[in-house]
């Protein structure tokens, strides 16, 4: 699938983060599977999804907290990797490393985007308030649909241009990176998952959690011994 339809699907999935449903569809694992499948490489989408998933897990969207936009960043990362991986089969480690770095940048920019969308919503809120004064209650449905459409368009555009720019940028970088660097970057994925696990551990710091972490580890060992 081309970049534009992929960005449209990405924009639609990204709505699940806050605006609609909030049923985990926008989480990297699920968006990775959907976008990977549409891009023609479901295994790659799954791989990128699981790689990025744990990084954002300990960020709790409590109240008006500003947290990294991990879901949008992961959508960009999956599409970008799917579009570049066929050209860099021998530099996969470097590719993943640079894509994740790029996604980290967008997770930070995504926070500013969310803040802007919320500020824009304040104007929509004023419209609702003014129109209700004129006794028109249908404004609530109309503004909600408009807000969804607006967010969809903004997120689609961000995904489209982020992938486009990333593609140009990364291609320029990957051309000049020596082939042996791929070997140096062979532990990049482990570092990303390790970081994800380390960050997630902050959610399980009670004494009794340690016991269940150990039980999980033992179950994991037993599984591999039996299988």
């Amino acid at each position, binding site marked *: 699938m081309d970049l534009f339809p992929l960005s449209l699907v990405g924009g639609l999935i990204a709505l699940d983060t*806050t605006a*609609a*449903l*909030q*049923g*985990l*569809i926008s989480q990297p*694992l*699920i968006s990775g599977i959907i976008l990977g499948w549409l891009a023609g490489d*479901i*295994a790659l989408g*799954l791989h990128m999804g*699981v790689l990025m*998933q*744990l*990084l954002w*897990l*300990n*960020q*709790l969207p*409590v109240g*008006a907290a500003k947290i*990294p936009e991990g879901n949008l960043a992961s959508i960009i990362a999956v599409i970008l990797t799917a579009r570049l991986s066929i050209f860099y089969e021998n530099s996969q480690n470097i590719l993943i490393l640079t894509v994740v*770095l790029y996604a980290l940048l967008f997770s930070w920019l995504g926070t500013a985007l969310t803040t802007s969308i*919320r500020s824009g*919503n304040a104007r929509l*809120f004023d419209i609702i308030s003014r129109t*209700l*004064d004129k*006794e028109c*209650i249908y404004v*609530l449905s109309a503004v*909600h649909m408009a*807000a*969804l459409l607006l*967010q969809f368009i903004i997120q689609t555009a961000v995904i489209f241009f982020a992938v486009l720019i990333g593609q140009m940028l990364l291609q320029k970088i990957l051309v000049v990176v020596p082939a042996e660097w791929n070997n140096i970057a062979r*532990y*990049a*994925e*482990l*570092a*990303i*998952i*390790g*970081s994800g*696990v*380390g*960050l*997630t551990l*902050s*959610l*399980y710091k009670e004494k009794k*959690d340690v016991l*269940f*972490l150990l039980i*999980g580890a033992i*179950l*994991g060992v037993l*599984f*591999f011994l039996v299988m």
Partner: protein
Amino acid sequence: MPAEKLKYRDFFCIFLRTLLLQAVWNFKGMISAGIAFTLVPVVKRISSNRTEQAGILKRHLGFFNAHPYFASFAIGALARLEEGLAINKTGDAGQIEKFKVALIGPLGVAGDAYFWAIVKPASILAGSAGILVFNRMEYRLGSAVMMLVLYNIPHLYIRFTGLWKGYQSGYNTYKLLKKENYARVKSVYRILGAVMLGIVMVTVLNKNGSRDMGALLVFVLAITGSAFLRGKRVYMQPIVLLSMGLAAIIGLL
């Protein structure tokens, strides 16, 4: 047309509207526009007068915030109270407003501690563990589906029953938000999350680090370093950058 009680199909309409509760989330009223949006079927049922309908909805545009799923309890209760006010003339608008404001804290605390901190991580960790453990694509995709099921059963349950129980309880809705009411499910999901995180660690080590000292070192240092820095409230981006830098150094050696 005289004021009527809410019908079952109204609850279904309200439920569908709760799925868009945060579409107009903003710093002025937070989710208040969403609350007013969900109450449209209520005002249409209890009043045929445009001025009255708009007046009720306008009252609910005042600042309100809550966890998006647990907000259903407030929406159900508000539906009941507005219905009571329109049909039986029980209570008054000021009392309803005070009640709504009093619910902000309990709804936020209950929802954030229940969903964001426990159910969501546990469901995602279960999905991640399955995807990492299994090699066959069917099982890996099955794990992703399991993650969605594990999360969305309590998610949709709270959205729907919150609405219904809130409607039945009215001013007594706050009793439904007691910590004890969710203790068992929270405990199960917390255990599930911790066990799954243990499985994730062992699986990654087994697949990558069991025969390579460098990989083992990177993984262990990334986990311990990230956990330590997170404890010191360092942002996640520098933490991940540091881990990747460390991986490059060990890769170079």
